[in-house]
């Protein structure tokens, strides 16, 4: 195995690991499942790394591989949806705008996002990551128009989850 390539890969992943953690948190519900998915994504990224030619940013490429892994290749039995990880989320609100209601609302919203199906979750995740529709369409391999339509549908679903 090429040690230089390994070293380069690990350095890049270490610097960009937040992306993977955020995906793991969205797609799993406890620490074990989080670590498990993190490891699976790392393996898949490493397997795919020789094909990464650097024509896109490493982080952009990572979104694609990590989301595909979470959606398709990860064994799903380990991540049953439940809502008991409310406490572990602990959103930190900027002090000047802090109040219980805002925090509670954010928690409810986050919980609603977690209840979406895998694909909608991926769309909303990229939206939260402040990606343009062009980037979202590129990452998920769909047209820009389709990305917008799907995002609107996902928002509708979120509304329904929050106001049943």
């Amino acid at each position, binding site marked *: 195995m090429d040690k230089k390539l390994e070293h380069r890969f690990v350095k890049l992943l270490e610097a960009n690991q937040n992306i993977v953690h955020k995906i793991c948190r969205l797609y799993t519900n406890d620490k074990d499942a989080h670590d498990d998915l993190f490891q699976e994504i*790392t393996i898949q990224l490493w397997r795919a790394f020789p094909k990464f030619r650097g024509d896109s940013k490493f982080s952009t490429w990572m979104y694609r591989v990590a989301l595909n892994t979470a959606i398709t290749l990860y064994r*799903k039995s380990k991540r049953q949806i439940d809502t008991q990880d409310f406490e572990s989320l602990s959103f930190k609100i900027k002090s000047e705008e802090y109040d219980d209601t805002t925090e509670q609302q954010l928690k409810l919203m986050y919980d609603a996002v977690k209840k979406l*199906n895998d694909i909608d979750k991926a769309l909303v995740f990229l939206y939260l990551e402040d990606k343009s529709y062009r980037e979202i369409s590129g990452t998920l391999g769909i047209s820009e128009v389709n990305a917008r339509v799907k995002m609107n549908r996902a928002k509708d679903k979120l509304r329904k989850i929050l106001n049943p």
Partner: protein
Amino acid sequence: MDKLDKLKENWQSEEHELPKVSFDKIYKMLLKKSSSIVKWIFVISIIELLFWISLYFILPEDNINMMKELGLERVMYYCEIFHFFIFGIFIILFYKNYKSIQVTDSTNVLMQNILNTRKTVRYFVYYNVGMTIAFSVAIDTYLYNNSEKLYEVMDFAKQGIPKEGFANIFIISQIIVGFVIIALLILFYWLVYGILLKKLKGNYRELKKINS
């Protein structure tokens, strides 16, 4: 959707809350094995091949001698070689599927690869079940037509089994045993590959949703 935008505002500021995995720990992860479904299909097919091969080693000597005396030894030998050759091809195909399912592929390519994997597994099961049925029918027909020879080789007279009607009783019991074996084989495939294929199908549906 104001609430979602609020969550978005807050999203980036949370980054310091996320766990940090060290360089060394990530390095160690590269050595770990993937747990993807396609890999399991590949691993199970190899275990299955080893299982069938081991059966030939634990086959009693008497059985081999009986085949010899019935004149079936050569045919059996060629059948086994053919069977393992086909088995080998399937293992190569499973390995190729495992290698070709790369998460970087575009959604369409990934879907195509999932379909290919499912197809290979289906053909593998069809081949094995079909081969077992064909083989059983051929052997039973041969033994039925050579029932006198079989009666002598198996020394049924010594066991007090009458010669009259022996061929019919023999063939009926062979058919019953054959059905049970095939049913067990189908049950095995249904349990092992069925579960894995179901998961793959689920993943395929998820991918299809993206394009719908």
